[in-house]
């Protein structure tokens, strides 16, 4: 990260550190000062939720965090929770309607009916069904209860009316039994109020109002059951209020966490983006200022006859190409940097060399990289000396776990492959490559249409040479990666051991089987290769 941030302090990115400081500050302030910080208590859930959402939105809208109005007015989780709770209570309420019709059952079964006025009871049941449907519809449409207190009030009033209506439909001495069916329906009304109104004074009044209405409806058929009924209203109310509050607090926290995570992501993305831009700006600055401008100036001042100009111009063009193609030869170390150096050298000699292509996925050991670069230099030197065509030369590098290849290809006259193994420059370079198990392959006509292809290759290298340094590395795998690598090595060794054992077993078994077969077929003469248990067995047979 630190490395990424450094370019930001360059003149081009002057304003940026201050900006990051501000971002971090806001982030911190949000984390500690307002809701959700160490002072956060579940008791302040609602206030916290509102404040959190306000603070977040303000912070986001001021674009310090960048998520802007990605969040809806309420957090996404909060909105969903609200919706689910509302739907749940509406469905409960809908189910309770069935119970309202329960008193009709004895009449349908031909028993004595409870109600004195069945039509009135039926009307009450139908009204309850209608009201439940309306509640469901309204919940589906609005998706929340808290923001819509009117219908909670309406519902409570309806419950009270239903109680009185049912009470009038039943004979006074039957009221306790006759009304019990509608108890569940009115209980859910208390739950609804608990969820929707919470601790508002109006909300607190609801269970008492319902209990009062119930007592009046049951009157005069009062029994001990009345106490448990009235308690039911209070309990439903309290349970739903607590549940709602708990869920909402959790949802607010989840939303906050989500928003923070998102903000962090965006910040990280922006930071990477800015660092990238700064790096690119720096590269462009170098390519243009240090490389291209001097050349253009020289041409503009008609100093084109300067003998150094073509070489400088070629290098400048190569640097600009690297920049545009996104090759990072500036910063790279290792084989890539060495190859770029060799390439630049031969650009100076007038070789029309495309920027080196391919990919270096695995960095070879430094000593091998130097040997490879030397061989590449030699190949290019040969192109320069013998090819006779300095155009369209390709330098291709492909280094993977399976080994590496550098291909130098020209479209020139082609040169004698014998000069490679003979006294040429390669003679000095060969041993260095051979030490790593590599070599040089030269193709020219007739294998090729024209020109020469020099391939410098080397096989896969062991992670490191088997000396005391590797022993040390095995003993102390410093990183998780090292440990993993070590584990893989151990597995490989085990697999190899297992394989050897398997081969031995197969050999032995094979020998034994063939001995058995030959013994059974009565072939006295065996091939005579040493088999420990065989002679005895053979002796037993005639």
């Amino acid at each position, binding site marked *: 990260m630190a490395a990424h941030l450094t370019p930001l302090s360059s003149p081009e990115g002057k304003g940026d550190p201050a900006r990051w400081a501000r971002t971090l500050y806001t982030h911190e302030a949000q984390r500690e000062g307002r809701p959700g910080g160490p002072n956060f208590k579940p008791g302040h859930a609602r206030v916290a939720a509102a404040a959190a959402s306000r603070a977040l939105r303000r912070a986001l809208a001021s674009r310090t965090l960048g998520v802007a109005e990605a969040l809806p007015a309420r957090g996404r989780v909060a909105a969903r929770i609200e919706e689910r709770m509302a739907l749940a209570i509406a469905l409960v309420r809908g189910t309770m309607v069935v119970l309202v019709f329960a008193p009709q059952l004895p009449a349908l079964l031909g028993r004595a009916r409870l109600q004195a006025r069945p039509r009135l009871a039926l009307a009450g049941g139908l009204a309850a069904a209608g009201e439940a449907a309306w509640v469901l519809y309204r919940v589906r449409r609005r998706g929340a209860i808290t923001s819509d207190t009117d219908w909670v009030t309406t519902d409570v009033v309806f419950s009270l009316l239903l109680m009185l209506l049912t009470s009038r439909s039943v004979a006074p001495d039957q009221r306790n039994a006759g009304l019990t069916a509608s108890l569940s329906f009115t209980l859910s009304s208390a739950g609804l109020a608990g969820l929707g109104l919470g601790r508002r004074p109006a909300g607190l009044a609801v269970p008492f109002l319902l209990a009062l209405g119930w007592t009046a409806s049951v009157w005069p058929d009062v029994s001990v059951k009345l106490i448990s009924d009235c308690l039911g209203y209070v309990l439903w109310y309290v349970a739903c209020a607590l549940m709602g509050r708990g869920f909402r607090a959790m949802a607010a926290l989840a939303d906050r966490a989500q928003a923070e995570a998102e903000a962090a992501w965006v910040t990280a993305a922006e930071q990477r983006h800015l660092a990238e831009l700064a790096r690119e700006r720096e590269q462009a600055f170098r390519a243009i200022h240090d490389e291209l401008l001097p050349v253009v100036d020289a041409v503009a001042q008609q100093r084109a006859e300067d003998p150094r100009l073509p070489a400088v111009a070629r290098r400048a063009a190569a640097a*600009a190409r690297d920049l*545009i193609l996104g090759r990072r030869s500036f910063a790279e170390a290792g084989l890539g940097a060495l190859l770029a150096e060799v390439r630049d050298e031969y650009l100076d000699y007038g070789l029309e060399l495309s920027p080196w*292509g391919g990919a270096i996925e695995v960095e070879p050991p430094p000593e091998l990289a130097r040997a490879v670069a030397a061989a590449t230099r030699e190949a290019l030197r040969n192109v320069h000396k013998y090819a006779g065509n300095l155009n369209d030369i390709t330098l291709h590098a492909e280094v993977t776990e399976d080994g590496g290849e550098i291909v130098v290809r020209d*479209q020139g006259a082609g040169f004698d492959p014998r000069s490679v193994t003979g006294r040429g420059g390669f003679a000095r370079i060969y041993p260095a490559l051979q030490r790593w198990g590599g070599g040089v392959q030269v193709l020219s006509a007739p294998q090729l*249409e024209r020109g020469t292809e020099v391939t410098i290759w080397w096989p896969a290298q062991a992670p490191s040479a088997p000396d005391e340094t590797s022993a040390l590395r095995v003993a102390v795998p410093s990183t998780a990666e090292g440990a993993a690598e070590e584990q893989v090595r151990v597995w490989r060794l085990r697999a190899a051991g297992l394989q050897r054992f398997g081969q031995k077993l197969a050999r032995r078994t094979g020998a034994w089987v063939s001995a058995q077969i030959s013994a059974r077929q009565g072939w006295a003469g065996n091939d005579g290769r040493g088999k420990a248990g065989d002679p005895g067995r053979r002796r037993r047979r005639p």
Partner: protein
Amino acid sequence: MTAEAKPAIQVAVVEDHEITRDGLVARLHLAGYAVVAQADAVEAIGEAARTLPRPPQVVICDLNLRLPGRTPGRSGAEAIRYLVDLGCAVLATSGVATPDEVLDAVVAGAHGYLEKTASSQAFVRAVSALAAGSYYVTPALAESLLKDAELRPLQQDELTTQARTALRYFARGNTADEVAAKLGLVPGRLTALLDRVWDAARRRRRRYALAPREREVVALVAQGRSHQEIAAQLGISQPWVADLLAHIRDKYLATHPDASPTLSPLAAAHLSAADLGIGVRHAT
């Protein structure tokens, strides 16, 4: 390869730098080609094609035709597509183009790409290959195609091992004939192989490149616009914006296997903007 022996292949050149164009035309003349049209815009070739008995066989077309101070015409992939529709084989060329720009040209129907610094011989080889209905694959182009295949895998009809091997040979600087010989193919079969490579590149683009609408959204996100603002500006609904962002995220994750799978759509849009080089918004 003398000028007389060659059938007069009809070539056109589209290049907005006069100096470069004159140089190229002179080199083509020298190589024995009939340069039937030269212009600074593809539309002019369209005009010229109407007066000619048949459209030029090969058009060498610069990828960047937007010199300042000129009426803006088609440029880049759009220009290539225009020429391909005229029935010409197109050789794209440029001072220097990013691999993405080159691949865009390839997808638009260019059968080859050469940098302007390439030698006359290279241009001559490229033009004859294209006139013969084949492709001209430079090492750089082969490499771009290989990298593209690695980065944007296809679900079906992915490049065969043979096609990859062919591209690898091209990347090392082998000529088409050499590649065909190494693979044991007759040249016609190599062209068929390259047809499939081109087709795969086209399908890769279709699958992974951001659609124009998605690009617009990315640009607006990079400017720090909100969902609402983006929806208002593009004249679409907010859920639609969310959908587009989800697509952008999917495409980003597909091309960046290292990215976290929990990356949010908005963050993915920011990262895509960085990849596309769309400017970061300024601190307020």
